[in-house]
């Protein structure tokens, strides 16, 4: 079998040498067996597996055996193949646990819906020889937006007035992308900081990973909107603030915090950023406070959220003395 892969590589990518030549797989059901040096064949195209993708969480690598980093042998392009893995698990948000399902169908449908829309990762889906719905994704050449923001080498005030308005303009476009999904009866389902990327070349913000599905609830968009709010608060603060890290970051300041200053879900995160940075416009801080423990009114649609957020960009520019 290894000879078959060797010949494929020799024929299609002659410049490529591998440490190991594995098998050719037409059926991806047993994805744990498929690893470095194997080739996945889908609709006559060949994808050489380089490695399993992994997520880093709290410094620990969590391998995702059903997600393969590949080289498309016919074109030489890097691709990510997501194989079928039906999993039900609990998504933990603060103290709340939500039953969550991985749905290849949902992700394939959204890929089709957003074809050509640069605000989303791009890809196609196809069936393997056993009818498994495989998603073939383009690699986003960029960096997580939160990492990009965190690494901007400026103090908060400088960042807030010089960089944030343009970042928020782009972020609003990302929010409109989520609204587009909602308008078509879909949700992203996993809006977290590591799922919004910024492309190196274009600076375009790109949503990735939308295969999470849930039992339908009375407010179907609540989860997505909370994710957008948490991202906004991160962008405005340039990082997360908790009582613990505040002691290091602002050791010289006396800041009195109360329960209502913290996130509704993540009880240790400060959302009332105006207490930390008094130059934040009141209007913007009020948007943050919709995601706080003191909130009495919640956003039910992305439109409501954007309606409040949009004028804040101009306010920041005015306060910062920009035209």
């Amino acid at each position, binding site marked *: 079998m290894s000879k078959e892969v060797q010949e494929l590589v020799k024929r299609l990518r002659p410049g490529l040498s591998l440490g190991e030549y594995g098998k050719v797989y037409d059926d991806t059901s047993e994805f744990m067996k498929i690893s470095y040096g194997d080739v996945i064949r889908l609709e006559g195209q060949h994808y050489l597996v380089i490695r399993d993708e992994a997520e880093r969480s709290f410094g620990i690598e969590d391998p995702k055996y059903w997600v393969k980093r590949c080289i498309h042998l016919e074109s030489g392009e890097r691709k990510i193949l997501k194989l079928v893995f*039906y999993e039900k698990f609990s998504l933990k*948000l*603060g*103290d*709340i646990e*939500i039953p969550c*399902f991985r*749905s290849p*169908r*949902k992700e394939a449908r959204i890929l089709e819906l957003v074809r050509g829309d640069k605000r989303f990762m791009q890809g196609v889906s196809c069936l393997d020889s056993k009818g498994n719905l495989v998603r073939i994704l383009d690699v986003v050449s960029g960096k997580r937006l939160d990492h990009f923001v965190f690494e901007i080498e400026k103090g908060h005030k400088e960042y807030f007035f010089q960089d944030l308005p343009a970042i928020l303009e782009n972020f609003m476009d990302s929010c409109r992308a989520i609204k587009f999904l909602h308008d078509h*009866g879909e949700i992203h389902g996993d809006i977290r900081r590591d799922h919004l990327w910024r492309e190196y070349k274009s600076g375009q913000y790109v949503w990735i990973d939308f295969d999470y*599905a*849930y*039992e*339908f*609830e*009375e*407010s*179907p968009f*609540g*989860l997505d909107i*909370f994710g957008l709010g948490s991202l906004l608060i991160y962008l405005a603060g340039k990082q997360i603030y908790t009582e613990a890290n505040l002691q290091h970051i602002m050791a010289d300041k006396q800041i009195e915090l109360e329960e209502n200053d913290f996130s*509704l*879900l993540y009880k240790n995160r400060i959302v009332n950023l105006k207490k930390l940075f008094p130059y934040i416009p009141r209007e913007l801080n009020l948007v943050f406070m919709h995601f706080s*423990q003191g*909130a009495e009114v*919640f956003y*039910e649609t992305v439109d409501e959220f954007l309606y409040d957020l949009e004028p804040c960009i101009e306010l920041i520019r005015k306060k910062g003395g920009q035209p």
Partner: protein
Amino acid sequence: MNYKKILVAVDASENARRAAEYVGEIVGESPGFEITLLYVVRHAERDLFPDDKSWENRKKQEKEKAKYVLSELKTLLHTYGLSEDTVSTRLIEISNFSIAQAVMDYQKSGGFGTIVVGRRGMSKAEEFLFGSISNKIVHYAKNCAVWVIE
């Protein structure tokens, strides 16, 4: 609007049972009342299941459960003295749609003057993420009284 024409929105929860008991206590053997127990079954989306068969099985189970609950709550109302003619049941199946909206649509089309709904204690965070059926009905129902039973 006939306030004696009462729509009781129920499901398999304890709160729904409390709502039915409350209606039983209030109405009892009084004349002129018309009670409809409404169970809106919101089917899980096909996305959550690996194949059609498991999805269809789940839908069937949900429907059977709803029928059982309706029959049980109807019997419960009879124990409070409500006659066979006074209580009817209705099951509506929806998918990817608001239960609160389905209840309000049924209230409107049936000319019900009162909606009764149970409320489970929800934290603020749960309300943000999942929404509350009873809150939606309180906010948006028109031309009727709304009783919320906790």
